[in-house]
């Protein structure tokens, strides 16, 4: 599925909740709880994204064609949000990832997570994913970051 189709799917899922924020958050929280994204052994300090109130680790991999993404956080809501972003972007070509507008976050009523004052790292996460994608794009060979 394309990035856009992934986004559409998530938007459809969230439509069921209407404007009930509690269900939306419960969904995100469940997502955050159920996904072990990185093992503790993998959570090296060099994978930390700086400047977030909660800790956020990002590990990306490029096989020469597609980029795969894993991330984790010590805050559940942040982790749930990261899981959504990964679901949308994972296993796509770096140029698709660099250019993805990620409108779904606004569309599912969670735009507040992109506000800079939240300092929750979602903005930093997306930025770092795109920076990694750019780096892979310019090198073109397989690599782990």
């Amino acid at each position, binding site marked *: 599925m394309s990035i856009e189709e992934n986004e559409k799917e998530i938007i459809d899922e969230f439509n069921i909740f209407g404007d009930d924020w509690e269900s939306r*958050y419960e969904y995100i*929280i469940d997502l955050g709880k159920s996904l072990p994204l990185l093992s503790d052994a993998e959570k090296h300090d060099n994978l930390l994204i700086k400047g977030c*109130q*909660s800790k956020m680790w990002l590990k990306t991999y490029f096989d020469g064609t597609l980029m795969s993404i894993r991330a984790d956080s010590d*805050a*559940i*809501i942040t982790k749930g949000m990261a899981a959504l972003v990964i679901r949308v972007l994972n296993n796509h070509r770096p140029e698709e990832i660099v250019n993805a507008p990620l409108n779904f976050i606004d569309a599912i009523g969670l735009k507040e997570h992109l506000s800079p004052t939240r300092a929750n790292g979602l903005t930093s996460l997306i930025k770092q994913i795109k920076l990694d994608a750019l780096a892979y794009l310019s090198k073109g060979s397989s690599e782990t970051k």
Partner: protein
Amino acid sequence: MAIFNPIDIRKDFPTLEQKVNKHNLIYFDNGATAHKPKVVINSIQEYYTNKNSNIHRGVHTLSRQITEAYEQARVTVQHFVNAAFSHEIVFTKGTTDSINLVAYSFGKRFVKAGDEVMISAMEHHSNILPWMQLCEDRGASLKVVPINKAGEIKVEDFTKLITDRTKLVAITHVSNTLGTINPIKEIIHNAHLRNVPVLIDGAQAVPHLKVDVQDLDADFYCFSAHKMFGPTGVGVLYAKEKWLNEMPPYQSGGGIIQTVSFEGVTYAPAPLKFEAGTPHIAGGIGLATAINYINQIGFEQIEKYENELLNYAQSQLHQMEEVEIIGQSEHKAAVVSFIVKGLHPYDVGMILDKYGVAVRTGHHCTQPLMDYYKIPGTIRASLAFYNTFEEIDTFVTALKKAIKMLS
């Protein structure tokens, strides 16, 4: 003195009357900044509407009137902290600016290579970084006095660490993260026995308790208007006259000189020596109005009521097994920091916001303190006299819902 009634007092604060995320706003982030009563807002509007002019410059009527009002504001501040003279009150941009002024000017004159500056482990970054910078610039060293698990400084620990090379002690009156009211009078007394001057960061004290700089015998006392119901962008440095006379100017420019030629300058006496450029005139007026507002209520009533609020909030939180209060001193201002076991403060704050409750989460600009407790941050409810017991109940209910959602 009118009978204290928070319901009436709330009517003075327009920002409190709003819905956030469809709930009545519960504002428990007063430590970050407090709301402004209508009288303060009106005084600022009145200045720009009818009185606007520059101070200390013109002979014309408006300029004379506003100069008088600005200097009257200085006198109001003087009485507020019971300084001996109004010229011991320097207007600054805020606490951070006041501390930087002292670090620069006092540091330049008095701190040399090999000297020491002493702070405590619970300081706000604004009372750490200027001293780190000074010590780095001068080749001096920074000494940090430890705290105990309850979040208290022991006077003996302070006294023990003072040496002949200690040039200044800088310590907070009330901890913004823990709420602890430090025994600064004793600390100042002991430091003075060794001839060491003391700077007090009073940012979190002035909204909650009566400060008397002469009784404390503080050498420097710093605070911000915005945390005490006044405007942002203005603050105060109280300093003993003898220090102000010996310290060189902080910033250079208009307003701080008596005579100037290209051969040299003679500086104006304090406080003008430290107030280069056009100040935040409306801010000074607004601050004086805020002080008059506080005085009308009176610290006796404020302290009594806030103590009851604090005790109630702490007892409610104590009943929750998963909650641990960080900062358990007997002597606290109306600040409660806590963590919820197994949950990240950020997650809890996020859900509380959804219920209209404004708290602060994170390290509160006291990272060394968080390292000491080995936690990533806390959830902080910092109260003011316009908060109510009902709000605490609503907050506790919201907290319980948040914990249920997140666990």
